[in-house]
């Protein structure tokens, strides 16, 4: 054996040992199912199409039957990091501008990125939403475009960790920033709007008719009671001290990983849906309020208790209110839905509108201003857009 053969052999051993010792290639979670969709003013249905290294946007002009060629948002690859309680958001404003929020691993895992487009053909270079995005873990960011075309972001941020260590209470805070759609150059400084928030439940956000923002979060109350509270943010930026709105007394030093849903009708009625396993109430519930969330109707239980009902979304379109939620029977996940025509007083019988035998996203309700639809995605069905109220022919 000559020298080069020896080195060759050594190289083989080294390569072999490298291969065997090296940790297996890092698998990213299956991203395809965590999508988001919204209708534009021209009736087009826009959608986020996530993959493992980037997100793309496409649209449909036939209510989700076919989609355009997807356009990639960021030419630079980044590991996309989404999960069921941390999905992306897509919004379209009254001028047809498309706004996209998604999560990718950067200096911090699942960093929030924002990008927008004047017409959906070309997107801006994504920017980080949090002013401390590189130093503090933040996630579960929600985006809302209000009637004045101001884009709001709220998110869960761990930057106040030292404060919580001293004082106890919840694990993290909610931060907020907003910017006018016509003036997006840099996002303005963010600020804390709530403390003592449960770390793993998504927060819900809705625009009130008076121009203020209503934010529904699961808080950590004394003795580890994890019930919900409302925060109001007025158009001039004034924050009202959060007040408690659910009184189920779910005492748990743990992660429910089950956030609430909120929608405000054109008449200003608040509709909320939430999950609890409290001392006083157990299951999935709905209630409405006519005094801007000060008091709510007595909670109405939703779903078949034997099938783990959860993950409800609620959407009001005038007096029409829709509820959609997930159930599981051991083999299949189903989305059940019901609707009310009188602002939540009376409801249709629940019916199953979609099913999957594989992993699926949480159900989301969206509207084109005329009807309310379920927007849902699962591995075996692919993306589905289903009207909540059956067409006359289906009845």
């Amino acid at each position, binding site marked *: 054996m000559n020298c080069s053969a020896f080195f060759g052999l050594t190289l083989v*051993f080294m390569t*072999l040992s490298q291969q065997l*010792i090296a940790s*297996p290639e890092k698998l990213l979670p299956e991203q395809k199912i965590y999508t988001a969709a919204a209708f534009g003013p021209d009736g087009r249905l826009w959608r986020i199409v996530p993959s493992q290294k980037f997100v793309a946007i496409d649209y449909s002009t036939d209510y989700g039957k076919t989609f355009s060629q997807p356009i990639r948002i960021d030419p630079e690859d980044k590991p996309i990091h989404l999960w069921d309680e941390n999905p992306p958001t897509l919004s379209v404003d009254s001028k047809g501008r498309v706004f996209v929020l998604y999560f990718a691993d950067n200096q911090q895992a699942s960093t929030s990125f924002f990008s927008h487009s004047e017409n959906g053909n070309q997107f801006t270079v994504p920017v980080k939403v949090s002013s401390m995005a590189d130093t503090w873990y933040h996630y579960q960011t929600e985006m809302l475009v209000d009637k004045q075309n101001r884009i709001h972001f709220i998110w869960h941020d761990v930057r106040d960790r030292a404060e919580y260590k001293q004082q106890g209470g919840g694990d993290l805070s909610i931060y907020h920033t907003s910017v006018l759609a016509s003036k997006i150059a840099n996002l303005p400084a963010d600020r804390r709007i709530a403390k003592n928030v449960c770390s793993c439940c998504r927060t819900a956000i809705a625009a009130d008719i008076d121009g203020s923002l209503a934010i529904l979060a699961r808080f950590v109350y004394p003795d580890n009671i994890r019930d919900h509270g409302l925060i109001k943010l007025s158009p001039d930026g004034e924050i009202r001290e959060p007040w408690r709105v659910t009184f189920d007394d779910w005492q748990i030093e*743990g*992660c429910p990983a089950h956030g609430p849903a909120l929608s405000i009708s054109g008449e200003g009625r608040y509709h909320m849906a939430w999950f609890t*396993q409290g001392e006083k109430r157990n299951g999935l519930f709905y209630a409405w309020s006519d005094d801007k969330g000060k008091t709510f109707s007595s909670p109405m239980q939703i779903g078949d208790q034997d099938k783990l009902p959860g993950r409800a979304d609620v959407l009001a379109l005038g007096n029409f209110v829709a509820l959609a939620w997930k159930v599981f029977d*051991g083999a299949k996940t189903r989305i059940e839905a019901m609707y009310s025509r009188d602002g939540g007083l009376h409801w249709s019988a629940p019916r199953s509108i979609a099913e999957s035998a594989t992993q699926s996203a949480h159900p989301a309700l969206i509207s084109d201003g005329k009807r309310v639809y379920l927007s849902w995605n699962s591995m075996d069905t692919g993306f589905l857009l289903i009207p909540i109220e059956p067409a006359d022919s289906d009845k």
Partner: protein
Amino acid sequence: MKLLKHIIYFLLLLFCCQSLTTHAEQAELKHFASGSYQQILKNYADKPFVLMIWSIHCSSCLKKMPVLSELRKNMPDLNLIMLATDDISATDQVNSILNKNELGQTDNWIFADANPQKLRYEIDPKWYGEVPRTYFLDKNHQRTGISGSVPSNALETMLKNILE
């Protein structure tokens, strides 16, 4: 030529030792798929055990790790099984947390199915997925499930009950 053989043997030996060391340091994280819960019941037939279900996203779970580490030291004969409900893509993070808390040698598992809801249902059809979730099983596998961090006095009582 003889020298060469020696060098090769040496390299081989080095490689084997290296892989063994790596193996010993790393937690063996088993993939929890459909049927794994039944497999665990078989593995621990006629034996009491504690199944602690946790997630890297769950701060209450992480706060509990040092307590579990202490428990391992004080009760080395206790059958403690730990199951992370994170996606297998989080394997590195899960391993790092376990090793940091000296829990690498526990019977460790991670969710490995495209439909985590199905796995949760196989463990407990009444469980919604909140974590931590701890099951205490006696030797007949009669069990009690507790959601949220188990306070130390409750932990003591539960362990006493299953080990009786």
